[in-house]
């Protein structure tokens, strides 16, 4: 451990050095060492504030370690490690560098003690992550990446604006509780909201994540949104409206997830749903609620990575992740199928799996504060998430009717990465105390009570029954090759149409303006030339002549202005 060294710098610095290492095993080992070293560094640092930098007349606290930032920084290192193992065979410097830079930026963001450092990491994360989408090198991915980048940069600009307002009003840039009534609070709130994929601001996520590379989606799923959850927990804990927002977030994506065909997009929707739970936890704002949000973010990174990794393996081997084209893959990829089901069980909150011990913190917190409407909706969302992520994903990919696709099992490195993630999911589910110990607030909570286990099993089993009945009766909507309109329709379809119209009007207006100005200048010169009558010669504006004319006109204007 080096005193006061920011773990983020290990990843960020290492990302550039990685290019110097020869391709292949040497580079892979080097990259593998980085998150391990980072995690050790993180572990060794006592809580406190380090690495103050003077920038202009501001003091930046680039490293602040406390309970909240520690949990996020730790799980980010684990996610980076898993992704590196998962991408072991990858031979693409772009993805390798981005795959270190992006986690580094995310770690930097959660460790940032002030808003300016946060903003810098915020933007670095945005810019580095887009390369994971572009690295797919298709036109479609390029456009999706562009839309993604616009949303992310937009969030950054709002954040910067909010920070400036905040600084002007308070003279402080320390990143602590802000709340909506603080100056600039709303701007910062919306900036965080974009990255946390609040309803109506969520579409970049479903739009872009499924278009990224096999590795890219795994990485993307881990950092950006959780960074935002961290930021909300730090700046807006206990903000009432977050409970409503979070409940909505948990609810509406499940409808889309049911009818979505691209299984990675289904996961993207379920991600939105899981984020909703965390946002509710932050909104409740009690120690239990915040702990729940942190714990659920921790668990979510792991099981969502596991699910995305398994779908990535399917994409790699079968060439598609469309539900309509898959089925029966369990014969070819039994291990992947098994690991995917561990992930499915985890996200569905089966007892002994991770979400069971983390989601229940949030539900318990909601119950204790008497938010019974949110409680019911979250229960609905829990049933729904089991339905689409727990059953639909494994069912359509690995079981259902046999699609006839026969392929190899996933490569060994991918299986290792998935296995590690699965082990962590089960580990958290079986030994929740270990996770509870690193949460920001000390809690005494036992998820394994008879009531909790039985009611959860009832909920899940009867949801499964509903699924089976619907499939058997043929009511269940079939997987179709299609896209579903979401709010991105607004900017992908409506805006281009409007923009074309507006542009036409603007260019016509500009032409008219130009004509008018030209006319004016002609009149002016005609006036000058009245005595000579050489209208034809003078009416044409010579480039040099018109420049000089401008200068003289301005001189005259200035003289008049100054004399007045």
């Amino acid at each position, binding site marked *: 451990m080096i005193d006061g060294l920011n773990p983020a710098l290990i990843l960020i610095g290492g990302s550039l050095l990685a290019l110097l290492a020869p391709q292949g095993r040497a580079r892979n080992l080097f990259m593998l060492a980085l998150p391990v070293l980072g995690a050790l560094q993180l572990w060794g640092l006592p809580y406190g504030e380090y690495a103050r930098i003077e920038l202009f007349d501001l003091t930046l606290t680039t490293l602040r370690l406390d309970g909240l930032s520690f949990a996020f920084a730790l799980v980010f290192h684990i996610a980076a490690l898993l992704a590196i193992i998962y991408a072991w065979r990858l031979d693409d410097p772009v993805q390798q560098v981005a795959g270190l830079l992006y986690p580094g930026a995310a770690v930097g963001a959660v460790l940032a003690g002030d808003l300016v450092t946060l903003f810098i990491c915020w933007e670095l994360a945005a810019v580095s992550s887009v390369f994971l989408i572009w690295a797919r090198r298709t036109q479609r991915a390029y456009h999706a990446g562009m839309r993604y980048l616009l949303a992310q940069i937009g969030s950054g600009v709002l954040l910067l604006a909010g920070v400036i307002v905040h600084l002007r009003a308070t003279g402080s840039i320390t990143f602590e509780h802000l709340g909506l009534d603080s100056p600039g609070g709303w701007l910062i709130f919306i900036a965080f909201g974009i990255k946390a994929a609040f309803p109506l601001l969520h579409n970049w996520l479903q739009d872009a994540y499924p278009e990224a590379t096999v590795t890219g989606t795994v990485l993307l799923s881990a950092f950006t949104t959780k960074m935002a959850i961290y930021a909300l927990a730090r700046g807006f804990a206990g903000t009432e409206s977050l409970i409503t927002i979070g409940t909505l977030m948990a609810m509406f994506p*499940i409808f*889309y997830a049911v009818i979505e065909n691209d299984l990675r997009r289904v996961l993207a929707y379920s991600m939105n749903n899981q984020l909703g739970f965390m946002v509710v936890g932050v909104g409740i704002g009690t120690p239990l609620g915040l702990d729940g949000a942190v714990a659920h973010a921790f668990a979510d990174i792991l099981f969502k990575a596991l699910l995305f990794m398994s779908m990535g393996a399917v994409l790699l081997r079968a060439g598609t992740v469309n539900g309509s084209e898959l089925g029966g893959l369990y014969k070819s990829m039994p291990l992947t199928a098994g690991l995917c089901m561990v992930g499915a069980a985890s996200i569905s909150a089966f007892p002994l799996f991770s979400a069971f011990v983390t989601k229940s913190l949030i539900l318990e917190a909601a119950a204790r504060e008497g938010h019974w409407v949110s409680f019911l909706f979250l229960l609905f969302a829990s049933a729904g998430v089991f339905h689409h992520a727990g059953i639909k994903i494994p069912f359509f990919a690995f079981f259902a009717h046999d699609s006839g696709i026969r392929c190899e099992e996933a490569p060994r490195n991918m299986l290792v990465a998935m296995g590690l993630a699965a082990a962590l999911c089960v580990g958290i589910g079986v030994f929740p105390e270990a996770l509870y110990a690193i949460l920001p607030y000390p809690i005494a909570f036992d998820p394994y009570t008879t009531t909790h286990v039985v009611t959860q099993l009832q909920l899940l*089993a009867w949801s499964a029954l*509903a699924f089976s009945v619907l499939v058997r009766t043929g009511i269940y909507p079939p997987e179709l090759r299609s896209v*579903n309109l979401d709010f991105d329709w607004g900017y992908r379809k409506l805006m281009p149409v409007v923009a074309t119209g507006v542009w036409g009007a603007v260019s016509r207006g500009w032409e008219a303006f130009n004509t008018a100005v030209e006319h004016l200048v002609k009149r002016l010169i005609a006036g000058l030339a009245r005595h000579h009558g050489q209208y034809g010669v003078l009416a044409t504006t010579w480039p040099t002549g018109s420049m000089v004319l401008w200068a003289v006109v301005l001189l005259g204007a200035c003289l008049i202005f100054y004399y007045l």
Partner: protein
Amino acid sequence: MDQFFYGLVGICIVLLLGDLLYHKHATFSFESWFGFFAWYGFICCVALVLLAKQMRKVVKRDEDYYGD
């Protein structure tokens, strides 16, 4: 597949009856209703699928709708 389905039905009934065997710790009164979590889960899922099916009529478009 059939055995699988009937097995599931069996498990569901056993779990439902399980509610009779212990004292439920409930925060809200509705939690303590008999088999609340079971039928709530079932109804929710059916409602979810039926609503989503209706939604498809509105939002479904051809795969290359956006043209890229």
